[in-house]
C-alpha cells in the first residue's frame, strides 16, 4: 500500500435523472412534473432522447466558471466511477479517497425545503449504490440539508453507521449564518454522536439563494477572484465554530476543511488568536486555550487548490512558518478539478519531512480509518 489518502475527490451525476430513481414515490412524480414534456415522455415511455438539455429542479447554474473548462479533460467531470478509479486512484496508487458530491453542494440553494431534504437522501443513497459499492477504496461524506438541521440530523443517524461513510458535509450555510450558530446544533450533535467529522467545503456558499455571500464585500466579478477568495467562507465558519464553543460542548467533534487551499491558515490563526485575547469575554468557555489550539486539535485542512505562484523556496518558508501545520494538512487532490494536484507535487512543495503525514498519516488518524473503513480495505487485500 502506498499510504496515500486523498481527502477530496468530487463525484457528480451525468444527469440529474440518475437521482430520480432514488426518490420516494410522490417526489419522483414531482420531478417529472417539473421537467419539459419532451423529457417527461422520454423518461416515462423510453421515447427518443430530446436534443435540448434537461432542466430540472436540481439543475444548478454557477455564476463562476473557468473559461478553459472546470475539469480535467479526460475526467468526464467525475461522473463515472470507472474513470475515477482508473485515471485517479489506480494511476496514483491511492489507498483511500473521500468523495464529496460536487454539484450537490448547491442543495442549500433549493428553496423548497422538503425537496432539499428528499434530494439529500437520494444523493446519499445514490452515492452508496453507484459509487461505494463499486469500489472499496472509496468512502464518502453524507450530504445534509443545512437549511433543515433537524432533518439533517436524522439523515446522519440513518446512514452514519455505514462502513464507507466517513463524514458529514456542511457545504453551504442554508440559513445564512456561520456554522457555529446554535441553530445548527442538531447537526453538530448527530455528527458527534456518530463519531463522524464534519466536512466544510468552499464552493457551496457561492449559490445565489443560500442567503449568505460567499465572499465579503459583494459578489466577485470573475471566477479568478471568486476562487482566490474561496477561503473566506471557510474562515467565517471556523471562527464561528471555535468562538461559539461548539467543541467545548462536544469535545470529540472534528472538522475537515476543503476547497480553500492551505495558504490562508497560519497567518489567519494568528489574527484570530490576537482578537480572542482582546475580546475573550465572548468566548469564556475556551478558558485558557487559544483558538489556534482548538483548531489544531479539532481541524484538518485539505491541500486543494494548491496552486500558488510563488518561488519554491519562498513557498516552503511560508508553509513552514508554523511547524504545527504539518499535523493539520492532508492531501486533497480536488479531482477532477482543472487544477487537481498529484501527491508528489504537493509533497514536493512542502517543508522537508512533512510528506508522510500530509500524504496519508494525518488523514488516517483523523478519519480513524484503522477502526472504521479499514476493515473493508483489508478484506480487499485478502481477496486481491
Amino acid at each position, binding site marked *: 500500500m502506498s499510504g496515500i489518502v486523498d481527502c477530496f475527490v468530487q463525484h457528480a451525476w451525468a444527469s440529474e435523472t440518475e437521482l430520480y430513481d432514488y426518490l420516494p414515490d410522490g417526489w419522483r412524480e414531482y420531478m417529472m412534473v417539473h421537467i419539459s414534456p419532451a423529457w417527461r415522455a422520454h423518461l416515462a415511455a423510453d421515447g427518443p432522447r430530446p436534443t435540448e438539455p434537461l432542466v430540472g429542479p436540481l439543475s444548478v447554474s454557477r455564476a463562476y466558471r*473557468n*473559461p*478553459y473548462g472546470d475539469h480535467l479533460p479526460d475526467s468526464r467531470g467525475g461522473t463515472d466511477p470507472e474513470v475515477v478509479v482508473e485515471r485517479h486512484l489506480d494511476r496514483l496508487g491511492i489507498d483511500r479517497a473521500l468523495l464529496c458530491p460536487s454539484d450537490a453542494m448547491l442543495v442549500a440553494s433549493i428553496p423548497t425545503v422538503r425537496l432539499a431534504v428528499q434530494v439529500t437522501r437520494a444523493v446519499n443513497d445514490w452515492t452508496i449504490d453507484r459509487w461505494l459499492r463499486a469500489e472499496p477504496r472509496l468512502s464518502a461524506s453524507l450530504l445534509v440539508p443545512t437549511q433543515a438541521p433537524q432533518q439533517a440530523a436524522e439523515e446522519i443517524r440513518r446512514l452514519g453507521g455505514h462502513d464507507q461513510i466517513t463524514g458529514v458535509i456542511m457545504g453551504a*450555510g442554508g440559513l*445564512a*449564518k*456561520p456554522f*457555529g*450558530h446554535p441553530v445548527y446544533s442538531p447537526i453538530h450533535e448527530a455528527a458527534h454522536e456518530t463519531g463522524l467529522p464534519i466536512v466544510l467545503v468552499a464552493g457551496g*456558499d457561492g449559490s445565489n439563494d443560500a*442567503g*449568505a*455571500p460567499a465572499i*465579503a*464585500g*459583494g*459578489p*466577485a*466579478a*470573475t*471566477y*479568478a*477572484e471568486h*476562487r*482566490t*477568495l474561496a477561503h*473566506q*467562507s471557510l*474562515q*467565517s*465558519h471556523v*471562527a*464561528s465554530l471555535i*468562538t461559539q464553543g461548539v467543541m467545548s460542548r462536544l469535545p470529540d467533534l472534528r472538522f475537515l476543511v476543503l476547497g480553500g*487551499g492551505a*495558504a*490562508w491558515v497560519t*497567518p*489567519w490563526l*494568528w*489574527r*484570530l*488568536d*490576537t*482578537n*480572542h485575547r*482582546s*475580546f*475573550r469575554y*465572548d*468566548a469564556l468557555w475556551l478558558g485558557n486555550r*487559544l483558538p489556534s489550539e482548538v483548531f489544531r486539535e479539532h481541524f484538518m485542512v485539505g491541500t486543494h487548490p494548491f*496552486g*500558488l*505562484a*510563488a518561488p519554491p523556496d*519562498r513557498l516552503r*518558508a*511560508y508553509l513552514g512558518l*508554523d511547524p504545527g501545520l504539518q499535523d493539520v494538512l492532508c492531501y486533497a487532490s480536488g479531482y477532477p478539478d482543472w487544477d487537481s494536484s498529484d501527491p508528489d507535487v504537493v509533497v514536493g512543495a512542502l517543508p522537508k519531512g512533512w510528506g508522510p503525514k500530509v500524504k496519508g498519516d494525518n488523514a488516517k488518524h483523523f478519519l480513524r480509518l484503522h477502526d472504521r473503513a479499514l476493515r473493508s480495505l483489508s478484506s480487499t487485500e485478502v481477496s486481491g
Partner: protein
Amino acid sequence: MKRNRIYDVDVHNTWASAAELVDYLPARWHDYFQGTGAVRSFATPMPTYSRPGGITDRLDAVPGPGLAPGSSYDLMREQLLDRYDIDRVLLTFSGKSEPGHPNSDLAIDVCRAANDWMADRWLDGRDERLYGLAMVPTGAPVAAAEEIRRVAPNPRVAGVALGANALGRLGHLAYEPIYDAATEVGLPVVCHVGVDLSMLGYGYAAGLPTSRAEQFALLDQGPVHHIVDMIVGGVFERHPTLRLLFNECGFSWIPSVLWTLDEHYSILKAEKPELKRLPSEYFHDQVWVSSQPFDSEAPAGKTLELLETFTGIEDKICFSSDYPHHDSESPAQVAGRLPREWRERVLAGNAARVLGWPTEAEAGAVPLAAERSGG
C-alpha cells in the same frame, strides 16, 4: 542629531457630537436632523458587537464626559503628535458610514459638510502636521467626483476617503467617476476596514459573525476583496497613476492572496482581457497598506519571516498609529519589529510615495522636537 521622519497614515478624528456638523449642512436638513430636539446620528444601521469599556477606543483617549475620543485636538496633540514627535498625520475621520447612506441626497450633503468641518476645525493651519481626507458619497459617484474637484485645491487635503461600500465591491465600473476625478487631481484614494459594515450581510463571508472576536478576525475579508477587485476590475490598468492606501486591513494575507491570484492569471486574462500585467504588479506599483493591526499573538519573529517571503512588501507598509483605537501603536512598537533597513520606508518613505509627501531625502534632516519648539 538626526532621527527618522515619522508619518502616521491613520489617525481617527471626529466631531464631538453630530450637532457640530449641523451648522455645516444646508438649511433644508436642519429640521430633519434636529426636529425632535436631540440631534440625530448620521450613521446608517449596522450590527453592534459589544466592546470592553463600551467603546472601541483607548479609555484614556476620552477627552471628557460624553465626548468622543478623537474629538479633541489638544488631547490628540498630547497623546500622539507631541508624545511621539510625529511629522505628519493623516486624519481619516472615525468609522463613518455616512458616505454610504441609502438616501444619497443626504449622503452628498453630509460629506460636503464633513469636509468643510474638517477644513475649518483641523486643517486651518493651527498645526502644520495635520493633513486630512475628503469624504465622498460613494453611492453617488458623479456627485463624489464633483466633491473631489471642489476640495482638491486645499493643499491639506491629502486623499479621497472611500468610506463605504455603497454600490458593492470597489472595482465595479460604477465607481469610475471617483477614480477618474482622484486621478485628475492627483490624490490617492484611501479606504479603511469597516467599509462594508453599513451594508448588512455583505461585510463578511457566510453571514454575520456571532461575537466581537470573530468579527475582528474576519474584518479584513471585505478589504481584501476590494483590493483584489480593484486590480481585477482594471481600475489600476485604466488609471496607472492612481494610488490606493488601504488602512487597518492587516498585511499577513498579502502573500497567500496575491500568489493565488497570480496563479489564476491566464484565466483572468480570458475574463478581463484589458489586464496587461500580473495582479501582483499592479499591487506593487499602486497599492499600500497600513501597519496596524499587528497580530501580536504570532510567535516572536514569525510575522517578519512571513513578510520576508513576499518580495517588496517592505515598500508597501506605512506606519499607522490608529489613534485612538484600543489597539493603537506607537512608532517605536512598529519599528522595533522591523529590520533596520526597512524602518525609514515604513515610518515615512512609503507614506511619502502614496500621499505625495516629501521623502527623507527631499525634506533633509529633521530637527528634534526640542529644536523645533516655538515653530
